[in-house]
């Protein structure tokens, strides 16, 4: 599909996501709803990977770039947080460390456990 068509498709899905978000009774981000919508469209083969491939690659490869203005926006919050900056920074650093570590340990541990159980099962299934 031509790149303009791909852009139209992705932006259209984003618009649809925001419509759904506005209709929902609870606060749920439109971008995450768009992600779920796009996933379902791919899952039920309404869309093919090739329909959005180039546009998706462009967005994913440059993802960090799109966060620059949001990062620069911290300047505007300076007055609200200036008295607590060291404490806030410490909280951010420590919680990120704890969250990363605990998540990695749980996922890594459970994957290892699952693989081990499957191996044992397949060994048992094999005829002697």
């Amino acid at each position, binding site marked *: 599909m031509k790149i303009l068509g791909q852009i139209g498709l992705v932006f259209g899905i984003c618009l649809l996501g925001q419509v759904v978000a506005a209709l929902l009774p609870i606060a749920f981000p439109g971008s995450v709803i768009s992600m779920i919508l796009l996933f379902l469209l791919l899952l039920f083969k309404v869309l093919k990977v090739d329909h959005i491939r180039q546009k998706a690659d462009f967005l994913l490869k440059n993802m960090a770039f799109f*966060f620059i203005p949001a990062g620069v926006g911290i300047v505007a919050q300076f007055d609200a947080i200036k008295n607590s900056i060291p404490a806030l920074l410490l909280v951010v*650093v420590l919680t990120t460390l704890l969250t990363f570590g605990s998540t*990695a340990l749980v996922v890594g541990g*459970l994957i290892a456990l699952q693989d081990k159980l499957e191996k044992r099962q397949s060994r048992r299934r094999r005829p002697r």
Partner: protein
Amino acid sequence: MNQVFSEIFASPFFGIALCILTFEIGVWIEARTKIAVANPLLIAVILCIAVIEVFSIPLASFNVGGEVITVFLGPATAVLALAVYLQLARLKKYFVPVLAGTIVGSVVSVTSAYFLCQWFGLDRTLTKSMVVKSVTTPFAMAISQNIGGIPSVSVAAVVLTGILGAVFAPLLIKLFHVTHPIAQGVAIGTSSHAVGTSKAIVLGEVQGAMSGVSIGLAGVVTVILSLFLPQ
């Protein structure tokens, strides 16, 4: 003369050009130094802030172009669906570990932020603004508002957390000996949402997709957790 400058600064092309230029400088420095702290996003943000402070450019002028770039955040999040779809077989096989990881990680994030804020003597409003720091911006703003935090402070904490995750993900992977690519991806996505995911994508397709899944899962878990926070 001054008026000419303020007109230039208020053009959408100024913000966009500054972001692209500083990001390219960041990419160049990262390629040259190959150290984690030389993260293109971090470098670009620091350079942009330096430029607007030095030339006393109003943030509103920068944001004329900045908002054009921010518009792409929604589509960038949405197309993570493609990354997830391409890794569907892996996700199906390891769905339980992935789900358990995002739940545990989100609980750790919210509770550790809550108790650390209390411990450091931060007030209730700041504490409430901080507990949402590991989820992606739209989730964080919505939750922060619901529980009585300051959404803009939450956004600052979220962005800082994300940049921290993107910068230190490779180091944290070594520190915690995280060998499995799925565990790496889920840990990045759960602890540092979409900004961290931008780094996970660079680490590999599996990491990127799993980090993308975790953004959504961690967001939902945190919404539910926020209902149980003490008032």
